[in-house]
């Protein structure tokens, strides 16, 4: 290997004497010097921002009510409304009087921020009725012995307590970016851990992706394109070939040596970023160094093209030209692939599957609703999946073997509060699942659950119940009158402006009754589990776990029987599932916990890899077995074992890939795994064997996507997707969750393997062709 090592060393030597390299070094050092003064400062999260509002409409309504409703004036919301700036108060009064007034969230945020410094609005008695989280209780206990930041923080928490269901979950600490000791204008309401995750997952990969993917690759090709043609000069090539070296190895050595240029640049940039992140942000992320081989790998894709072109035409100019054309083709195919992902395959992915009798019904990522026609072996659309419409469909539930209920939120992703009409839609097999409106859902309903003879609707802050019979009666079905002996329970509806304000606040609408006890608000992030027979409901919300049980008074609030605060960051998303008497709790960056389903007493726990985020879980049967779907698109079994059931075991990935969703059929007990967009495997829960595979036939664009775009994306290396590989490697995560207004958020899985495989195959083929050409050709 000595001669080939010499060739590679010589390439390094050549690269180090290149002026372009030193210019690139200079540019890299300028970038690093510019980035070096960036630092951060941590402080309490105090100031409100418009993005802090989960439901601005509710805030507007609560403030308006506080101003116009005499009974509400001494409530916390009323006391805060009283100190709003005059201009805002005037607008809020108009809202309270029933006018359609558009108030910018920023204006509301400014109004609340004004309350942070002056706390005349606070009255301990009034706040006693509010739900105070642990942090506020602790600050209250400290009395007046608080710093200015702590005092402002306490004021913010009091305001949040006064307006339940209005605010997004925010960390108690915020990060303020600084540059050379000066504060940036913007601060980020995330704690340090999340800030570092943000830096890891977005900022650093983005810097590296841009600098590597575009600047250095292009610069690298410009510099290295002449290496092969130069080697082919007679005075150089004949001498090299006269040496006792293999032509193939010589070419490969030249190829790897050519990567030296980019390696040296990337090495400096990445090590520089690593040191800056470590020294200035206290972020010593050794995974950042993975960017070095990945970036060289990315460059080698293009360089393999340049090498072959250089061998054939012996011209650096042609090599650069061909490589540029190739890069353009890669980019175009990447864009087309992205378009197909975004408009064809992405929207068709089934995010939630429900069994309605023997019919499978799914809510798609594109806001569509589909049901599976077994005769035609294809999905039939009820609501069309369309990525551009922004509509969102609430996961359907079964109202019986032949009836289902759902709702479509128009412009849902951009209108998460669901303002405007939000009807519960009932679909009947008899009408070929054509949706017909039924009851009006509470404002901003984001999920509905089957609860025996009832249906529960979850919105921004509450959980409301409606009788199935009422729903069916409103739908106009004959079935409704037969299903229950109870007459439809109509809530006493307040009249006029108050009714309007109540609706705006997400209060129960006609036919729905709130079942939440006092001082319980469904604060996000949350995960709700409802007993199919309707006896109980369990909710994980903002790190708090509660169990509600139906009381004897079926019309009133359910009883809060268990309440426990979980350790860890409250704003972490999570999922829960029940199997027999055991409950699984899986939250981001927390171990998987098994607790008693009634007392919430911990039973066992098992660690989940930090790279994985739990997305959904289902209980398999009553024996304490669960299937957990994780962010890598795989499923794992969680099993409680041991004599006393105190041991928890997490198995390796089950044989399903690219899993979109999992669900169990209550009737058959079978597990349904949706994977590869809309394929379904029906699994026997006892041994997790596949009993049925459903492979729907494809239509139009899906056919083109599978048989044209997918092969094309395998043939043409998807260099752009290597950015995802970098993001995944730097962050150590397999997916990222984007808040799209839905309960679980939109999970974007990093496609790590495909770009690596596609690029590696391409490099192998190109180098193989180059070696064949070089070894057999006369020079």
């Amino acid at each position: 290997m000595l001669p080939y090592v010499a060739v590679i060393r010589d390439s390094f030597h050549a690269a180090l004497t290149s002026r372009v390299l030193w210019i690139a070094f200079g540019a890299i050092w300028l970038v690093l010097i510019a980035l070096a003064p960036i630092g951060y400062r941590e402080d309490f999260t105090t100031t409100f921002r418009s993005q802090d509002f989960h439901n601005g409409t509710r805030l507007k309504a609560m403030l308006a009510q506080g101003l116009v409703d005499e009974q509400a004036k001494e409530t916390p919301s009323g006391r805060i409304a009283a100190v709003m700036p005059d201009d805002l108060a005037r607008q809020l009064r108009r809202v309270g009087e029933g006018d359609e007034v558009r108030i910018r969230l920023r204006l509301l945020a400014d109004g609340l921020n004004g309350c942070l410094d002056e706390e005349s609005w606070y009255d301990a008695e009034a706040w006693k009725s509010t739900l105070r989280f642990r942090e506020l209780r602790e600050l209250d206990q400290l009395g007046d012995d608080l710093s200015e930041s702590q005092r402002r923080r306490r004021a913010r928490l009091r305001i949040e307590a006064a307006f339940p269901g209005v605010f997004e979950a925010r960390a108690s600490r915020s990060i303020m970016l600084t540059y050379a000791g000066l504060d940036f204008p913007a601060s980020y309401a995330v704690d340090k851990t999340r800030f570092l995750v943000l830096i890891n997952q977005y900022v650093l990969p983005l810097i590296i992706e841009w600098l590597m993917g575009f600047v250095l690759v292009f610069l690298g090709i410009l510099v290295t394109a002449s290496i092969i043609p130069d080697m082919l000069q007679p005075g150089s090539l004949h001498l090299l070939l006269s040496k006792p070296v293999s032509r193939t190895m010589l070419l490969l050595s030249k190829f790897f040596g050519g990567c030296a240029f980019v390696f040296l640049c990337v090495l400096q940039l990445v090590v520089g970023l690593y040191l800056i992140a470590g020294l200035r942000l206290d972020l010593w992320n050794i995974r950042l160094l993975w960017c070095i081989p990945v970036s060289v790998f990315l460059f080698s894709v293009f360089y393999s093209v340049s090498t072959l072109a250089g061998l054939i035409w012996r011209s650096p100019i042609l090599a650069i030209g061909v490589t540029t054309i190739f890069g353009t083709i890669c980019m175009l195919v990447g864009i087309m692939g992205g378009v197909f992902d975004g408009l064809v395959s992405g929207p068709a992915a089934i995010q939630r599957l429900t069994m309605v009798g023997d019919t499978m019904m799914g809510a798609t990522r594109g806001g569509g609703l589909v049901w599976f026609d077994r005769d035609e072996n294809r999905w039939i659309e009820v609501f069309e999946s369309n990525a551009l419409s922004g509509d969102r469909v609430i996961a359907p539930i079964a109202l019986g073997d032949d009836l289902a209920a759902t709702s479509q939120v128009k412009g849902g992703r951009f209108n998460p509060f669901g303002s405007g009409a939000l009807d519960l839609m009932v679909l009947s097999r008899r009408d070929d699942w054509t949706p017909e409106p039924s009851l009006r859902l509470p404002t901003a309903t984001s999920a509905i659950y089957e609860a025996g003879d009832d249906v529960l609707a979850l919105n921004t802050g509450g959980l409301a119940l409606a009788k199935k019979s009422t729903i069916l009666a409103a739908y106009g079905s004959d079935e409704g009158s037969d299903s229950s002996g109870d007459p439809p329970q109509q809530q006493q509806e307040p009249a006029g402006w108050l009714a309007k304000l109540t609706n705006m606040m997400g209060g129960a609408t006609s036919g729905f009754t709130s079942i939440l006890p006092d001082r319980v608000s469904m604060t996000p992030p949350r995960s709700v589990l409802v007993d199919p027979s309707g006896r109980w409901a369990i909710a994980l919300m903002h790190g708090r776990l509660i169990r509600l049980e139906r009381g004897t008074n079926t019309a009133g609030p359910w009883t809060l029987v268990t309440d426990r605060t979980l350790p860890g960051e409250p704003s972490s998303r999570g999922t829960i599932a029940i199997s027999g008497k055991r409950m699984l709790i899986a939250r981001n960056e927390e171990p998987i916990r098994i607790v008693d389903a009634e007392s919430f007493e911990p039973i066992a726990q098992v660690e989940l890899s930090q790279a994985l985020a739990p997305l959904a879980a289902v209980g398999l049967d009553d024996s304490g077995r669960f299937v957990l779907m994780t962010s890598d698109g795989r499923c794992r079994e969680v099993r409680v074992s041991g004599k006393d059931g105190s041991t928890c075991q997490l198995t390796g990935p089950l044989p399903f890939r690219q899993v979109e969703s999992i669900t169990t059929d209550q009737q058959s007990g079978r597990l349904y795994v949706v994977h590869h967009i809309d394929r379904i495997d029906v699994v026997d829960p006892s041994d997790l064997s596949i009993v049925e595979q459903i492979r729907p036939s494809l239509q139009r664009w899906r056919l083109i996507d599978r048989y044209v775009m997918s092969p094309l994306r395998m043939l043409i290396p998807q260099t752009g997707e290597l950015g995802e590989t970098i993001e995944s490697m730097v962050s150590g995560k397999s997916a990222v969750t984007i808040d799209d207004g839905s309960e679980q958020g939109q999970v974007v899985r990093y496609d790590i393997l495909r770009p690596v495989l596609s690029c590696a195959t391409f490099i192998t083929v190109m180098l193989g062709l180059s070696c064949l050409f070089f070894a057999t050709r006369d020079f």
Partner: protein
Amino acid sequence: MTSSTGTAEAERLLTRNQDDFSAPADGVEESIVSVHHLAKRYAGWTLLGRRPVDALNGVSLTAKAGDVFGLLGPNGAGKTTLIKILLGVVKPTGGTAALFGEPVGSMAARQRVGYLPESLRVDRHHTARSALRYYGRLSRMGAGEIERRSDELLELVGLRGRDRESVRRFSKGMYQRLGLAQALMHDPDLLVLDEPTDGLDPVGRNEVRRVIERLRDSGKTIFLNSHILQEVEMVCTRVAIMARGRICGSGTVDELVGDVRSEQVTFDLLLPDATDPSAVLLPVFAAHEASDLNITPMDAAQGSYRVAARLPEQKQVDEVIDGLRALSISIVKLQVKRPTLEDMFIKLVSMPDEAN
């Protein structure tokens, strides 16, 4: 007269079977370069279709250990193709070629060959020393051996003292010296030198020539491709002349030149009585078997004449001089012209294909 004699000699050489050029004198085991019926056809294309080009047409030759083998030929004769085949750069389409008994292009063969290309190109980031280190490593030499040989060779080629200077500042001559040093780096048994003195000034040429002579004296086998016939004549022990992809002639310089040895002697004479110079001179030359006699008046009024004749032996020249002096003819100037390799080269390469 001269022309007809030369052509005849060339024809005689060419009528020898091509295999005769390759016949080793002292057994096959001493053959360093052994080429038999080597052919190379390049695929060529024109607008009218495929037009293959025959670069080599059954070339056979042998170079023995210790030979300084000169390869001569006009441009396009196939010399470079032959060298490329010997180095393994180009694959032959017919025949066989071996170095040291190993097939050309094999690692074993290339391990024992040092090559100086015609236009050596050393990457600009190198110094003379780093270039020697690089090429030494390519020849699988160890670090210690590379350092030792580098010192010796830099001294040998006169680059000591400038060995840490970037090759960017090197003149053509310095490049050639560096090329020679790298070719010698791994102490090869066979040196293939392609135009080693090309671009050098007379001093440089002389230096390179002396290096070659020293290598020859040390027993190295050298395969020399050069356009400079005088150089080949001076240093080569064996020569092959190529034209149109064939070997036209091969052997030692003396063998090649000796085959046409028939010296032309020119006399500038001053006759005491110039009334009939032919009558006076013809008997003298005819008596000593002179051929191709040619008498040209230089200044007839003064009795000054130039006589050219072919006299193969020195004894005949002496006898003619004696005869002239006996007739009181003054010999103002005597010039003996020997035939050169160039004469032979031009004769051989200008032969039509049919003759070959």
